[in-house]
């Protein structure tokens, strides 16, 4: 069970908001880059969030570049999952591959700093502060397995190959 508080980001949060090119001098030092995660969307986020917190987006979270740095530094910052109404497809795929849980469900009723619980296996998001639950579709089995191993590379290391 993932637990933490919600940080709201709106629609169309781009990979440039998450990991801008101007900070790419840090790209070989991802823990340092992670200190700037989502800085161009909310400058206070990286400094004030706690491990386990959730990034809550609207539509089309992660649009733009294929840079894997984007989901990687969200994970490195200690975010337990990104919850959004929809995701850009490359970001979604990268998130699974680097072991960052991504949850697709309605986010309109979530308010800033609401306490959330997410059960990935059951496909349930519980808003503890407001006292309601949202269900979300479970990922295909292969993606769930990749997430459980912590990403695609640990998965292939353990299982030897990728079978659909």
């Amino acid at each position, binding site marked *: 069970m993932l637990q933490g508080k919600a940080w709201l980001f709106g629609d*169309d949060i781009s990979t440039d908001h998450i990991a*801008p090119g*101007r900070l790419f001098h840090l790209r*070989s030092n991802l823990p340092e880059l992670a200190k700037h995660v989502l800085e161009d969307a909310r400058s206070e986020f990286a400094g004030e969030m706690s491990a386990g917190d959730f990034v809550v987006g609207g539509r*089309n979270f992660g649009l733009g570049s*294929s840079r894997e740095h984007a989901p990687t530094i969200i994970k490195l910052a200690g975010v337990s999952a990104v919850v959004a109404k*929809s995701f850009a497809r490359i970001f979604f*795929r990268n998130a699974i*591959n680097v072991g960052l849980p991504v949850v697709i469900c309605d986010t309109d009723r979530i308010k800033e700093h609401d306490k959330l619980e997410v059960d990935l296996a059951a496909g349930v998001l519980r808003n503890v502060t407001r006292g309601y639950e949202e269900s979300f579709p479970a990922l295909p089995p292969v993606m769930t397995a990749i997430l459980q191993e912590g990403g695609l590379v640990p998965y292939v290391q353990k299982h030897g190959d990728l079978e659909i």
Partner: protein
Amino acid sequence: MPMTITEKILARHAGGDEVRPGQLIEAKVDVALANDVTAPIAIAEFEKLGVERVFDVDRVILVPDHFTPNKDIKSAQQTKMMRNFARRQGLTNYFEQGRVGIEHVLLPEQGLVLPGDLVVGADSHTCTYGALGAFATGVGSTDLAAAMATGKAWFKVPESIKLVYYGTPGPWVEGKDLILYTIGKLGVDGALYQAMEMTGEAIDRLPMYGRFTMANMVIEAGAKNGIIAPDDATLDYVRPRARRDYEILMSDADADYAYVMEIDVARVKPQVAFPPLPENSRDVETAVNAGIAVDQVVVGSCTNGRIEDLRQAARVMAGRKVAPYVRMIILPGTQEIFLQAMKEGLVETFVNAGAVFSTPTCGPCLGGHMGILAAGERAIATTNRNFVGRMGHPDSEVYLSNPAVAAASAVMGRIASPEELGLTPD
């Protein structure tokens, strides 16, 4: 079962006769591509997989184009890692600085991607190759590492939307304007997970450079891939370049689409996409009337860095000057284009106008180097993204346009139409 061109290419590479939208497949890839931003991570992940050799030394392609010529020590270290990997593996398609071009201009030019191919690239604009009738899509570094090792990748078969462009375009309307207009209609997530199949008489008449521009930007509508069926223009482009076989595939007439959208290109004016999203496209007149002063103009990128793009910008700049206190930066897509621009006198035109003419690089498009914006500055660029902070400071702004509009804006020092300079189109 009738299929779209996208479904046919995926089915061929999955080793079956047919695939259906929504199906998860494992497919062989013809080309696996990475650049100096994404390759270092892919190489590190590849090495963790415990695989000795890449699946094919001719088909794993490394293009150091983003922060090159090496911008700083970090960039130098990243390209060194690529270079060492390319040497160790004996890759035949590693492009050293001085021979490198912008990946999505370079690979088609060198005949390395061909009709019917399935291409994965660790760069979101890999979708450019759809202009050749290939299935091409962007992936992350980890997916690319797996493809480098196995020659395979998994895909969810996308449903296709069919965009039918009809009519005759008006003056100064290019592929860039058609795709910005389309993104304006669809929105930045309007084609999420879908294939954008672009067809119709206006596409039939659109030269290859305009088709590359259109396929390049389908990602800005969220699409998985964009595709244009090969025709005589495609074959004229491909034949002198191809060094291996390729397959011409077409959509069946009765193939299924999520929907069909018709676009009358006669109604499309030159477009300017306002920050911070490519979907904010408006007629150039709207931008002109708003009196938007610019500090910088960029012509180039994987979207508009081809010789025809430079010719259009040069035609506007000929005998004119970049406005005082405005920087204009021209970035040819490849060394071949650089040379051609020299032969045609375009470089002289640009330098006489007071513009910077650069070696090929992605450079400022992603806020890397070679023209970064300060706080409060504004650029008009022929690039593909105008997100917050894309070209530099988070408080700077980027407007997107075609090369002639960008050049006219350089002359006027504000967003302008070439018609304001008394120019008539070719």
